[in-house]
């Protein structure tokens, strides 16, 4: 039948494409450079054809639905009459996109773990594997023109806000190809409408985020700011100062508590008199969201964003999530929680697994297709890691750069009075 033939044809394209890529990418001395480039181009075209979403292939695919409706958990509400919907529609296209993004974040974090153990990454490294539904789900609920700021567990957000894995890993390894040219490291990555990456444990972030929201309101362009902090940070005083001013001035700010149950080594029960983080805004309405379910996060974000854009002021979201790694790479993460607990979350609530199961069970994608995405993602991460390892460190001459903005060059003192570095803006 026609549709079977189309499947076989697609497979053929894929094989051809992969073959061309395989030949082209090998450092084959029998293969001149120009030949390799041609093969690479050919493979890109063929693989591109093979990956066209089902709806664009001339002959309709045998298996896949265009979309499916799912039930999602109802959110607990604080000072809200109604909350986000309890069902949502997921399109195949969106599903594949979210799957790919979450898998990319997952593999990127695991690669960072590997590089850290090889001592190619040093200093602080706070990984977010397990929390992928948060960064991907939040991004799915807002516009690229909205703003986002978070604390130091930021690699996932740096990616979802638009930077490449290459730029992120190279920043972790402290190379000149890093998104901050090696000057910032793990906790200080910035992108358009993404304000880091902030290091002060606790809540330097939250007043900053309220300030960005103030700018949104000031500029009158209907933009909002997502301001994230953790369950540990939730007890910092300046958060409450920010809550007060945001509510007073009706700033379009979504305060988001990423509750992964542990502030470093301290469980929420040992740190907070009230662990109902979504209620801690008191006069600010709040919702508690299943942070392991990307669709739940997406719907809650859409709901909260609409609330802010309607000029009603700030709103608070608590995302209940979990991190597989310890607090940072120096924390094995098992002295304050059991391996059984970690394993239980992995087997029952893993966000990527949940999405995958949903998509496969409702015919939005096939297992093989998702496996292919896995392979592709692995390659992307591997390439990025190679770049991040091979790229040179920033040149010493740039040590003094970027002290001041928009200033003429001047001299910066080094370790003694004779060592001087040039500083340009």
């Amino acid at each position, binding site marked *: 039948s026609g549709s079977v033939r189309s499947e076989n044809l697609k497979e053929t394209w894929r094989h051809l494409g992969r073959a061309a890529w395989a030949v082209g990418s090998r450092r084959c001395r029998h293969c001149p450079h120009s030949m390799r480039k041609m093969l690479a181009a050919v493979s890109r075209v063929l693989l591109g054809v093979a990956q066209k979403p089902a709806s664009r292939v001339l002959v309709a695919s045998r298996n896949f639905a265009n979309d499916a409706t799912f039930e999602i958990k109802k959110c607990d509400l604080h000072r809200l009459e109604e909350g986000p919907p309890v069902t949502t529609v997921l399109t195949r296209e969106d599903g594949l996109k979210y799957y790919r993004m979450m898998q990319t974040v997952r593999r990127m974090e695991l690669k960072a773990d590997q590089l850290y153990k090889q001592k190619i990454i040093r200093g602080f490294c706070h990984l977010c594997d397990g929390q992928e539904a948060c960064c991907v789900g939040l991004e799915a609920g807002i516009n690229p023109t909205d*703003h986002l*700021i978070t604390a130091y567990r930021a690699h996932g957000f740096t990616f979802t806000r638009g930077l490449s894995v290459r730029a992120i890993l190279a920043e972790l390894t402290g190379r000149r190809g890093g998104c*901050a*040219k*090696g*000057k*910032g490291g793990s906790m*200080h990555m*910035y992108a358009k409408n993404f*304000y*880091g990456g*902030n*290091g*002060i444990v606790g809540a*330097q972030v*939250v*007043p*900053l*985020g*309220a*300030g*960005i*929201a*103030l*700018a*949104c309101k*000031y*500029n009158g362009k209907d933009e909002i*700011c997502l301001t994230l902090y953790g369950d540990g940070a939730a007890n910092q*005083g*300046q958060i409450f*100062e*920010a809550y*007060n*001013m945001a509510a*007073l*001035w009706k700033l379009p700010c979504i305060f988001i508590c990423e509750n992964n149950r542990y502030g470093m080594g301290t469980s929420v029960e040992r740190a907070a008199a009230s662990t109902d983080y979504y209620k801690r805004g008191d006069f600010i309405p709040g919702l508690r969201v299943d942070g392991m379910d990307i669709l739940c996060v997406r719907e809650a974000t859409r709901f909260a964003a609409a609330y802010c854009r309607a000029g009603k002021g700030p709103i608070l979201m608590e995302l209940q999530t979990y991190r597989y790694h310890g607090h940072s790479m120096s924390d094995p993460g098992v002295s304050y929680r059991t391996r059984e607990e970690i394993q239980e979350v992995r087997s029952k609530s893993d966000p990527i697994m949940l999405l995958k199961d949903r998509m496969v069970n409702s015919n939005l994608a096939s297992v093989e297709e998702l496996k292919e995405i896995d392979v592709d993602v692995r390659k992307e991460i591997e390439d990025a890691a190679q770049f991040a390892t091979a790229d040179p460190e920033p040149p010493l001459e740039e040590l003094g*750069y*970027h*002290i*001041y*903005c*928009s*200033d003429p060059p*001047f001299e*910066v003192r080094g370790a003694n*009075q004779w060592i001087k570095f040039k500083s340009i*803006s």
Partner: protein
Amino acid sequence: MAVVASLTRRPLEQVSGLLRRRFHRTAPAALQVTVREAINQGMDEELERDEKVFLLGEEVAQYDGAYKVSRGLWKKYGDKRIIDTPISEMGFAGIAVGAAMAGLRPICEFMTFNFSMQAIDQVINSAAKTYYMSAGFQSVPIVFRGPNGASAGVAAQHSQCFAAWYGHCPGLKVVSPWSSEDAKGLIKSAIRDNNPVVVLENELMYGVPFELPPEAQSKDFLIPIGKAKIERQGTHVTIVSHSRPVSHCLEAATVLSKEGIECEVINMRTIRPMDIETIEASVMKTNHLVTVEGGWPQFGVGAEICARIMEGPAFNFLDAPVVRVTGADVPMPYAKVLEDNSVPQVKDIIFAIKKALNM
């Protein structure tokens, strides 16, 4: 504010006044303006010039400012541009920095810089370091301003000078105006600067009038950050100071002039980046140096000047060690006699100068 009104009167009126053959009134070339009025004018002009500029702080709007520095601004610009905050320094300083990151140009007022200690993390870690950490991607065009240093009878927790603390940090610019001209030119430069700038004003100077020269009356009058000013030429000794003590230095210079000692008085204007070249050039001329500041001696502004002079070309021109005049090394006491002796007085400066000159 009659002097201000006369400033805005159109030239034609003055000409027609002459033609009408009244008693000739000299056009006000120089104007008497207090430091408070100068800061007010500077902020007013910049608020008018750029709609991204706004002011926030405690009591800045409806109260007209705790020290009346922002008088009239809320009436003119309204709630959007002049914002009263609750008592939450860390919170509103952070909000101001966030707004600056998102493209606005906030002026964040601390009622006094003593309260900025609540918010110092935002000033240093969120504002000062960000441009560097982001390798030039994220700038923070913010001004932190307010009264700094000793006042009168406000005791220890309200009298600290923060010039050394903020001057310590790369990524910040720190200015310390003395006169009205300084105040106006520096606040305007600070607001137009794309970097975080700390403006250390002085409460006891707010009410002091100075003559504002004609060029300082222009709406584009700016004083460059990082440049000191020689307030008084001299040949025998260089006196370097900033903020209110500059007045005392000039007084001491007047007294000593009668004894034949000519002091060159340098007003630093900027703490960071420090204009060490002007100081060096002066020392190479006079061969003697005295530093005067209101802050504590250890790790202070004078200590930094001493170190830099030692490291530079001017060291070989010194005929005597540098002498520092500073605040006493104690938390500020309350009783008048104690307070008076905890800050540099004119007699202390004169004594120090004579010591430097070995007299």
